[in-house]
């Protein structure tokens, strides 16, 4: 087992190195959410109610973009390019390899949440998170949920050229209906209904409770955690069920 862990660690180290070597991936996975935060922060400057919405909203979007979006792209690329098939022909255990890739995505999530947390305190007047445990629990649940959904979604993407269209067709509507950029409570009823059924709104609710609202706490957001967990179970099942090590033949 130590061997499995050592190989996973080596794969993780390589993924990190390559991540920073690829400027476009680093930009879209990393800087874009931070730029959004900077823009909205500047626009909403002085409006604390809206800043209290946007900071956890961007945090939730970051969880989704660093896991769901990044893994859907990555897995599609690795499958289409035959990297997965090549790895499958080596003695590297599959688990080590996938752990290395997932670890890379989770590191990006952690870095972004850390930056957003600090920015909230320093620039946007939201202060330090009220409940660190709740923040950790929701980020962890969000990571598992969106990472598995990203891998599962990559099974539906036919090739890498179409990956941006497929991913954005899901990512953009979800971030708009889920109240990343506005208070979801003010949205029309049917949008609220859609958002209620999806995991991102519940992640943002949980993050909002952890980061800005003093008296909500983990207990107040148990049902939100339940929805995220349900999507997570579905995501894991679909990710494993449809997993393919090679490009399907046309």
């Amino acid at each position: 087992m130590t061997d499995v862990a050592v190989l996973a660690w080596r794969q993780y180290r390589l993924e990190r190195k390559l991540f920073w070597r690829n400027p476009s991936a680093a930009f879209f996975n990393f800087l874009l959410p931070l730029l959004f935060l900077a823009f909205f922060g500047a626009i909403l400057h002085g409006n604390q109610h809206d800043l209290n919405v946007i900071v956890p909203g961007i945090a939730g979007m970051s969880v989704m973009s660093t896991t769901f979006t990044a893994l859907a792209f990555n897995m599609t690329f690795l499958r289409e390019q035959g990297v997965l098939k090549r790895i499958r022909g080596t003695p590297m255990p599959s688990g080590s390899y996938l752990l290395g890739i997932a670890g890379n995505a989770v590191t990006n999530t952690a870095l972004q949440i850390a930056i957003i947390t600090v920015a909230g305190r320093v620039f946007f007047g939201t202060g330090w998170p009220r409940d660190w445990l709740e923040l950790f629990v929701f980020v962890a649940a969000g990571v598992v949920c969106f990472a598995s959904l990203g891998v599962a979604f990559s099974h539906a993407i036919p090739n890498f050229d179409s990956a941006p269209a497929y991913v954005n067709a899901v990512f953009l509507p979800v971030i708009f209906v889920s109240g990343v950029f506005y208070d979801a409570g003010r949205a029309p009823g049917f949008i609220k209904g859609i958002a209620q059924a999806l995991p991102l709104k519940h992640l943002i609710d949980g993050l909002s409770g952890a980061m800005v609202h003093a008296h909500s706490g983990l207990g107040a957001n148990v049902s939100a955690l339940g929805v995220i967990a349900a999507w997570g179970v579905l995501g894991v099942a679909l990710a494993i069920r449809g997993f393919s090590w090679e490009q399907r033949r046309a």
Partner: protein
Amino acid sequence: MSEPAIAVHDLRKSYDGFEAVRGIGFEVARGEVFGLLGPNGAGKTTTVEILEGYRQRSAGEVSVLGIDPGGRSRELRARVGIVLQSTGIYRHIKVREAVAHFAAMYPHPRDVEDVIALTGLEGKEEALARTLSGGQLRRLDLALALVGDPELIFLDEPTTGFDPAARRNAWQTIKALRELGKTVLLTTHYLDEAQALADRVAIIKDGRIVVEGAPRELGTDTRYRVAYRNGDGSVVEHETADPTTLLHELTAAALARGERLEGLTVTRPSLEDIYLELVDD
């Protein structure tokens, strides 16, 4: 070491009712270079991918280095090297980094610098994979397959898309593998490649082996072709299993008429002739 490197017996594979492989059997001895030939869709890749452990067979027996590849054991994967037809690599990885990364996956890897030298990638150690030419990428494929110091190497169309000089270089590398005592299973479209490299070849058609043997022995039961130009310039061709007697008769008759047999040639059928004869309907 009398046990063969690869033993295949009555191998069958069906996809959705279509039988792609219909009872293939062959053995590859240790240290042998074995060529698998055949047109597209003949069942070559399916056969090789079953041996590599990528696919499960429908029926038959398969043993690779004494192990059933269907079990996908790590031990077996540590002892074989695979060069697939088209496999990618991370675009932003450096050559040496890639070879070293793959070396760490194996229990007894070869020296990274040795492998880079063997595959002719010296001077490219710090180059990113995305900057390599097609031929260089193919050599990197080979380097990644060799770095685990495998006993058996699968080469699936290793020189497709190469220019003639690059092909000759690749052939030298494959010959070097034989000298290292490696067993090689080679699939190729190029008959000259099989003729130059393989100790034995098998030609697959419609999921079955139609002929098997050493390239130079194949077709010894086929006819030699004797050709010359007639007095009027037309080409006369004879086919015979016994060129000695035929030549004696032809030359004797020509001398008796006081003629010469212009442009006289005697040719053995090449692997290509045999292949085309077997594969064309």
